């Protein structure tokens, strides 16, 4: 409730908290904002951001990833890969119980991956095509046999991608309508208690959690507050302890971070590395010309957008792969802001002034303003731009049906180019009806070949070589106009300690967090 700001010292507290980390204390409750209200908590079945945020505390994957995306034990205590890179063996923790008291065994793993997730998770299904068989030689060992040494395999075990489901509840049922979906049973640090639709979700401490000493927090309340200004007010009044990244408007961020006893961090997005870009419809109009697409890159003042719209958080993207994703090539050239060069390119190609339609993302004020900035940038170099506004459903429809010229979007990279990058550039992924595949319609046989080889090349040094080549090619061709690697600051009360502890950040944050009394 204090209104007086203490200025810059606040941001430093984030670092300080880790420096003299005290002995963690048990107890207390944390109030978090959940925005928007998720359709379900069934992680792996629903991929909504907030499903991950809440469900990631109830369910677990076999592994956890740190901020450098290295795997760490969770439900699996150790693992090894065969010399040809094609056989992976996982050894499971022995004393793990489901929230209903039944033991967790290898049968649950085989069922979850081979039966349930194949059906319910479209993203994992593509990767599972590299998996020939999944078997359980004993209760605590699982063996994955691959048909090729699929490079990103070890990064598939994140909870949102490959959560473990209880076989004794789901086997033989219709997964989508199983009543347990309303009362999820996982192995995670928190148990589901209650979901008052439209109000809050309540999770409570799992007393039989398999990691000894964890969790420290007794209760978690996720509050549904639909209005952005009200969310900010709820934090100001101390009713809310944690605002996950992206849950308040960007223009409120500086004001909130200056409040007393308020910490802010941009950590915890490394695994996703949200990459914002403009789809350029390569099929039609001036966008079909490479020089026009390059001109768009030169025309945009992306540093300005970063500093003004995103409060300086994030990084200007200079290619298809985010700098935190594996196999990013540091030596790539960057398209600097250079309107003169853009004008020259447009003249060279003989751009006739055909107007282009610009589709902003319907996700709040920042995106609207960003579209206005880009429109102004484009018009300054002589590209006539018409803004088309629509709601989420309309946006998905237009993008998925290729009914656009230029459209904003942002995409998760999932730590590896084979998981979250190649899907947007390979020609076999051109298919109407999805807003997440090769929407721009870029076709290049060499790029297809490089991506295909890189996914299964072995070892990693070989993959790096191929990915560097393909990045260079894409930066030259500009199939889409890359904007920024986004960072969504998580704003929280400084009494919450050790909040962001992994590469997926808030999604599995509360198992290790504690409250300073």
């Amino acid at each position, binding site marked *: 409730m204090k209104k007086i700001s203490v200025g810059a010292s606040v941001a430093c507290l984030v670092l300080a908290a880790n420096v003299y980390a005290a002995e963690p204390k048990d107890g207390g409750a944390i109030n978090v904002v959940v925005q928007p209200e998720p359709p379900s908590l069934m992680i792996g079945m629903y991929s909504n951001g907030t499903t991950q945020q809440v469900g990631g505390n109830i369910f677990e994957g076999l592994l956890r990833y740190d901020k450098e995306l290295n795997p760490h034990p969770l439900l699996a205590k150790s693992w090894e890969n065969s010399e040809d890179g094609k056989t992976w063996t996982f050894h499971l923790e022995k004393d793990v119980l489901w929230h209903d008291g039944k033991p967790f065994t290898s049968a649950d793993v085989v069922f979850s991956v081979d039966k349930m997730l194949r059906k319910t998770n479209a993203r994992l299904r593509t990767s599972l095509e590299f998996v020939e068989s999944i078997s359980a030689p004993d209760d605590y060992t699982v063996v994955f046999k691959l048909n090729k040494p699929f490079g990103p395999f070890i990064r598939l075990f994140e909870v949102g991608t490959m959560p473990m489901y209880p076989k004794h509840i789901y086997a033989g049922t219709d997964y989508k309508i199983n009543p347990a979906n309303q009362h999820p049973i996982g192995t995670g640090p928190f148990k589901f208690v209650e979901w008052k639709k439209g109000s809050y979700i309540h999770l409570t401490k799992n007393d039989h959690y398999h990691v000894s000493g964890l969790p420290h927090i007794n209760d978690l309340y996720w509050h549904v507050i*639909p209005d952005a200004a009200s969310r900010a007010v709820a934090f100001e009044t101390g009713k809310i302890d944690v605002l996950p990244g992206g849950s308040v408007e960007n223009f409120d961020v500086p004001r909130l971070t200056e409040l007393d006893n308020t910490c802010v961090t941009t950590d915890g997005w490394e695994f996703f590395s949200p990459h914002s870009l403009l789809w350029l419809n390569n099929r039609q109009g001036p966008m079909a010309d490479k020089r026009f697409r390059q001109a768009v890159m030169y025309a945009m003042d992306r540093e300005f957008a970063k500093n003004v719209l995103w409060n300086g958080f994030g990084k200007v993207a200079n290619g298809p792969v985010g700098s935190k994703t594996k196999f990013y090539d540091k030596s790539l050239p960057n398209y600097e802001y250079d309107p003169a060069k853009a004008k020259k390119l447009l003249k060279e190609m003989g751009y006739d002034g055909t107007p282009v339609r610009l589709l902003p993302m319907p996700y709040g004020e920042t995106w609207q303003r960003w579209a206005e900035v880009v429109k102004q940038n484009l018009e300054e170099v002589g590209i006539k731009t018409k803004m088309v506004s629509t709601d989420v459903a309309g946006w998905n429809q237009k993008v998925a049906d290729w009914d656009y010229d230029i459209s904003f979007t942002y995409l998760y990279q999932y730590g590896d180019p084979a998981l979250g990058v190649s899907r947007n550039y390979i020609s076999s992924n051109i298919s109407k009806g999805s807003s997440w595949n090769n929407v721009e319609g870029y076709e290049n046989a060499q790029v297809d070949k490089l991506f295909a080889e890189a996914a299964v090349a072995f070892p990693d040094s070989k993959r790096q070589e191929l990915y560097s080549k393909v990045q260079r090619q894409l930066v030259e061709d500009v199939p889409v106009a890359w904007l920024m690697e986004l960072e969504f600051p998580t704003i929280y009360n400084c009494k919450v300690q050790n909040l962001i502890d992994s590469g997926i950040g808030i999604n599995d944050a509360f198992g290790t967090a504690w409250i300073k009394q």
Partner: protein
Amino acid sequence: MNLQTLLYIGGRLIKGVIILLIIAVFNFFLIRAAPGDPAKVMAGEAGATDEVFLQQLREQFGLDQPLYYQLWVYISNLLHFDMGMSYRQNIPVFDLIMDRLPATLLLTGTAFLLSIALGVLAGVIASVNYKKWVDSLITILSLIFYATPLFWLAIMASLFFSVYLGWLPGFGMETVGVELSGWDRVIDIALHLVLPATTLGLFFTAVYARMTRTSMIETSRLDFVKTAIAKGMTPSRVTRKHVLRNALLPVITLAGIQAGQLIGGAVLTETVFAWPGIGRLMFEALFQRDYNLLLGVFFISSAMVVLFNLITDVIYCVVDPRIELSK
């Protein structure tokens, strides 16, 4: 109530059912005219998708069937009092609506009673003090509240009373995380109710105040009022028994309209104060193209409008016995 009245009410109810069905059919097509469909929205949110996934969703929702068949299924389910399942949440629409109904009725009902009571009172006071400073004050205030956008008022109220003064809770319907029962819980909910109910009620308070004032001033100039005064009745009795009772008819008409909005009319207030009501359910369903849920809320709200129109007509003849109900 005599037979004629009962027949009238019965006839109106039958007409009401027919109107509701026509509205349902109309809504069915209206919603599908919006771009995108629920499968695309859900797939869009999923962050990754393929044709298989989209097809699965459409089959699950029955959206792969021809439109006339979908309409037939919807209407025949409706006639069996089945509003279908919410696509997004996999929960029956009826349960979702019933879950939210008490919160909405509490909010809108409080605002409704509050605005009628305060509005009529303010209107009467203003008209009795016609052209004095009290009258001017009430007129100015009601004009301000009439013209101020609801969402702005709501945010200001929450900033002032919740952030600055810290007197009232700024969001939600109850304090979460503490077990309250009995009177403690009632008081807790009442405290949470103050800001949203007041902001929601202020607009209609202003409308009622202005309506009552005008109507009172008009009626007080009529001959029968002069007669009453000439008979030597006390001014307060004239105001209550003669003027107010006759001046109330337009207010009742308006109250009927407001009552019709009891279900879906609080979207903004519910959003700003995070009140877990039906307005928000509807608003979110609209953006998610959750057809069944949206149609369900529309259906319940239109039923309320039809019902309250009827109740308004019945109240007319109670207030003014000269009005008769007949076909």
